[in-house]
């Protein structure tokens, strides 16, 4: 395996991490909330897709189209019923409630699906690849990367070009004044979390087809998502993609040296960025 190939695989892996991170980044940007159950929600969505694929024999890409609205509703309800109650000046309640939710989800999935590791079968697509001479690109990793780009383009269009996006930005800047202008911040928050969960469903498809997952796989996904957001800088979705790519490349380079170092080298890259540029590489938000 050449260095170039390793880097290309890392970039594609970074697309997956950006998909993990996009929802986290969106929610934090709008309501300064960090959802510690984000990774477990990705795993939940992966299990939903798995049930549709194995139970009804659906194509995984069709299954994700069904799971996306389901996850949107789940996210909307989660925010409206649970998380909106925790928002305030104090960062403690949202963190502890989402931490509790993470433990609840993990153990509910353990009860429902046992601790066995599963995989979503994507048929012939799984092994399909494009040969470019020195580099061979797997079709699924490439689609994950392109999906990440599409999600970020879509979210940016939504945020900067639509009335809903204007409401997002206004609520993010000043919920009280936004409220005076006829926006209902709580509803805006619920829509934002719903959207984040729809993105989570896309991330879950590529998580589940790329490798095995089990009910305890959530926290590691949360950490990768978080690292991508911080490396990229808060408030910038393109930054998050760059952060994901840096994390992915660091991991594949580490794994090329010694397979045991894959995860560790990703973490070290994150710490290095934190050391040199504490606000990330492409920061936009003030805090």
């Amino acid at each position: 395996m050449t260095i170039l190939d390793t880097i290309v695989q890392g970039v594609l892996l970074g697309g997956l991490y950006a998909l993990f991170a996009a929802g986290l980044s969106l929610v934090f940007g709008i309501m300064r909330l960090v959802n510690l159950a984000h990774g477990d929600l990705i795993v939940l969505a992966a299990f939903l897709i798995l049930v549709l694929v194995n139970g009804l024999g659906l194509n995984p890409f069709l299954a994700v189209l069904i799971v996306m609205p389901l996850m949107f509703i789940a996210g909307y309800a989660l925010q409206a019923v649970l998380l909106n109650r925790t928002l305030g000046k104090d960062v403690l309640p949202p963190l502890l409630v989402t931490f509790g939710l993470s433990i609840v989800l993990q153990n509910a999935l353990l009860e429902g699906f046992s601790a066995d590791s599963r995989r979503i079968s994507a048929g012939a697509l799984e092994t399909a690849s494009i040969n470019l001479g020195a580099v061979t690109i797997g079709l699924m990793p490439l689609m994950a990367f392109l999906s990440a780009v599409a999600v970020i383009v879509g979210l940016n269009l939504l945020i900067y070009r639509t009335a809903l996006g204007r409401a997002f930005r206004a609520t993010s800047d000043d919920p009280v004044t936004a409220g005076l202008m006829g926006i209902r911040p709580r509803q805006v928050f619920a829509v934002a979390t719903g959207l984040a969960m729809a993105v989570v469903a896309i991330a879950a498809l590529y998580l589940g087809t790329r490798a095995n997952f089990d009910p305890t796989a959530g926290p590691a996904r949360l950490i990768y998502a978080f690292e991508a957001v911080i490396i990229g800088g808060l408030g910038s979705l393109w930054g998050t993609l760059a952060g994901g790519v840096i994390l992915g490349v660091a991991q594949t380079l580490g794994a090329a040296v010694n397979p045991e170092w894959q995860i560790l080298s990703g973490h070290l890259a994150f710490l290095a960025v934190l050391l040199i540029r504490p606000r990330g590489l492409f920061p936009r938000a003030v805090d």
Partner: protein
Amino acid sequence: MTIAIPSLKVETRTRASSVSRLIALAVLALGLAAPFLVSRGAVQDLFFILTMLVLAQSWNLLAGYAGLISVGQQVFVGFGAYAMFGAVILFGIDPIPAILIAGVLSALLAIPTAFFTFRLYGPYFAIGTWVVAEVVRLLLAQWKTLGGGTGTSLPREAVRDMAGVGLLRDLFGMKPAQASDAITYWLALILAAATIGFIYRLLRSKQGLGLAAVRDNEQAARAVGVDARRMKAMVYLATAFMTGLAGALIYVQKARISPDAAFSVTDWTAYVIFIVVIGGIGTIEGPILGVILFFLLQNLLADYGSWYLLMLGLAGILTMLFAPRGLWGAFSDRTGIQLFPVRRTLVGGPSVHQGGSSHG
């Protein structure tokens, strides 16, 4: 002082706290005698309760008083445990001084970790501490002398010949296993008492007042000259020391270590958070109540596996939503009873006002 007003004094003591001081001393005395009064299994249960109490009090100080919400305190449990193992296996040090060394090394580890995590704002600090814990776990899993990823055991003779085991055998005819359980239990009792004593003293001191001010309004606290950053860093170091000691002590008793167990988020952070949240965050009584409840629940629901953790998580969420100051907070608000009062009251003046706001 130029004007003396001898009749006025600022105090934190209340009638309940004077009583609770007596009760605390009685409990401590009874606790010291426990290995002679109850079975070995009960001593092990008490050891578990006391070490979880130390972890809970440390996390409570960090999150409830200093506002530093960490989900990565398992780093100090695991690192303390590994430091103790290293001292015993590599240098042949007796486990008991090795525990102290582990505490000191954990506090030292807190310096570089604080350097990284303190750069992250509020909620991101929480995940940052988790990443640091993962990094330390993955690094220690590379250390082949201490068993790498699969872990290792303490040499049998290290625990059997631990300081004090011979003495207990000669004095009371205890078997080595029984004696080492008694010794680790006493150390846990001393550590728990010292932790609570330290936190109580800290909260009643000038620094404690500064800490409360920072928690309630950081900007206002800074404006009156409280160095918030330094204060938080000191609390972070102190809790790293206490957590490291507890981690080393737990693993002297377990005598077997692996990176996944020693850095377990569930065992050393999730349980601890639920103990504190359900018992009552931001109070000293809360974690004590929480750890007792936790122990009872664990024994009642031990057969239900993941349902147990699921319910614990739900209980934590419901507590946070509907009784954010936990069971003790709800009890204390209703009755006004505080066993470890830290609120300052003015006594000796013409009108003594008791009660009022619930902040310490």
